[in-house]
């Protein structure tokens, strides 16, 4: 009875879910490290699964969980701003690649939106899902704002953003190796554009230059996609 009371007390404490999230990530990161940072052993995916299982076992609803864990979510903002540090250190390299980056940004952002919405629409997904899906390649905070402003479901968008990041982080290295792409600026830029912060984190583990370009792509796409989605979406969802 005492342990049950203790559980009820802890569950109602915001710090419990914050601690559970950090603990789940530490465990997940340990597993990823033990696996040699293999792309299939993604720490975010493992941590999400661990927390989701804990919520299911404890019968806790998502809002209660998020109230406790929102401090971690808030840190997405400062973490994104911190990407400016490696960018500043490699500013000359970035300047030399300004034109390739601009062209790749426009094409990549367009392809990401059109392919996602086009395939989901062809497979019968309803309008609200298509709207929630459209900004899935950009960082969660901005994607949720875009989704909400266009009538989507922001928390569904957040889940799709994370799924996109995990898929990108898993496929980017084998895909680029298979294609024989050895330009780490191009590889990193693609990773950051297609799969935001999770792709950027993956790029930094592969090569520092890839990480810098991934961070730049992530930042630029957080501007390009919110401009493109309202222009493209009406044509795709007619």
């Amino acid at each position, binding site marked *: 009875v005492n342990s049950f009371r203790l559980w009820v007390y802890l569950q109602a404490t915001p710090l419990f879910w914050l601690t559970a999230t950090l603990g789940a990530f530490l465990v997940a990161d340990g597993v990823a490290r033990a696996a040699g940072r293999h792309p299939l052993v993604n720490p*975010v995916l493992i941590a999400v699964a661990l*927390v989701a299982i804990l919520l299911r076992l404890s019968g806790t609803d998502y809002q209660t969980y998020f109230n406790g864990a929102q401090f971690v979510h808030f840190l997405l903002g400062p973490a994104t701003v911190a990407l400016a540090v490696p960018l500043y250190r490699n500013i000359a390299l970035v300047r030399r690649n300004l034109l*390739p980056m601009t062209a*790749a940004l426009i094409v990549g952002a367009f392809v990401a939106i059109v392919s996602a919405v086009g395939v989901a629409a062809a497979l019968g997904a309803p309008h609200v899902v298509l709207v929630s899906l459209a900004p899935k390649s950009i960082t969660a905070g901005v994607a949720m704002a875009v989704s909400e402003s266009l009538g989507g479901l922001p928390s569904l968008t957040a889940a799709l953003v994370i*799924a996109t990041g995990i898929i990108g982080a898993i496929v980017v290295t084998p895909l680029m190796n298979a294609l024989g*792409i050895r330009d780490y600026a191009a590889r990193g830029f693609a990773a950051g554009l297609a799969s935001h912060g999770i792709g950027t984190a993956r790029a930094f583990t592969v090569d520092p230059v890839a990480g810098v370009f991934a961070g730049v792509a992530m930042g630029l796409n957080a501007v390009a996609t919110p401009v493109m989605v309202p222009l493209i979406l009406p044509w795709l969802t007619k």
Partner: protein
Amino acid sequence: VPAGVGVVQYGSLFSEYGVALAVSLVISTVAALLATVGVFVHVKQRMGVS
């Protein structure tokens, strides 16, 4: 992680449209990676950037 855990709210939606969403996310992510890296490398080669 907290945003990703949001999937627990959409059990019924995922059971109905999960396949469409999964196929869409995989195809779109790979397409975006290929388009971005292809254009980047092509433009860089045309410019002769090292």
